[in-house]
């Protein structure tokens, strides 16, 4: 069965520090992978997506993610976190016929 695991429920970093959010997926075919961000009280916004080609994907707000098939991972990274990045982050895998399976999310807290 398809699934997405985000092992870290809550992460705290200092402003300016680097960030890596982990995502592991289970899917039998070539995965279509997404990262979404949700600010408090808001809907979800797409950060980036991967479906083929270069395994390092660039997104909005300075985020990037790397697809590693051998590790079934799609980790999200940012070299220097800003206070405005505090939010909840969701990894998802796309399955036919156009549905998304989400992970449980990682809440990011940023200290000044």
């Amino acid at each position: 069965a398809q699934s997405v695991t985000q092992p870290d429920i809550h992460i705290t970093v200092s402003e300016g520090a680097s960030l890596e959010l982990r995502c592991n997926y289970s899917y039998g075919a070539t995965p279509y992978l997404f990262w979404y961000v949700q600010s408090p009280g808001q809907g979800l916004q797409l950060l980036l997506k991967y479906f083929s080609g270069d395994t390092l994907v660039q997104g909005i707000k300075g985020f990037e993610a790397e697809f590693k098939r051998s590790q079934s991972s799609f980790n999200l990274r940012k070299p220097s976190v800003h206070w405005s990045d505090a939010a909840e982050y969701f990894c998802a895998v796309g399955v036919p016929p156009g549905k998304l399976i989400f992970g449980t999310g990682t809440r990011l807290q940023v200290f000044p």
Partner: protein
Amino acid sequence: DAGITQSPRHKVTETGTPVTLRCHQTENHRYMYWYRQDPGHGLRLIHYSYGVKDTDKGEVSDGYSVSRSKTEDFLLTLESATSSQTSVYFCAISGEAGVVRETQYFGPGTRLLVL
């Protein structure tokens, strides 16, 4: 931002009461989705629609029904609300039929409390 609105944005109701949530889009997208978001579960798909009058179940469809009589509107109905249906409900839309890689755009959410 994609043109998606949800109404109401907040609702408090009592157990056993019927409730209908509305999702309205101005993008003329074919696919529409209803998710619920609960702590520790992320977002889970309730129902989705791939066209007018064409709907299908998601992973948590029990206790919910949907209808889509127009491209722009997708209604979610709780026939008899229960406390376990207290949640935040999100509508999403997607542009391409059957294309897994297409981005889904989310509405602002409806916060429902069932007492």
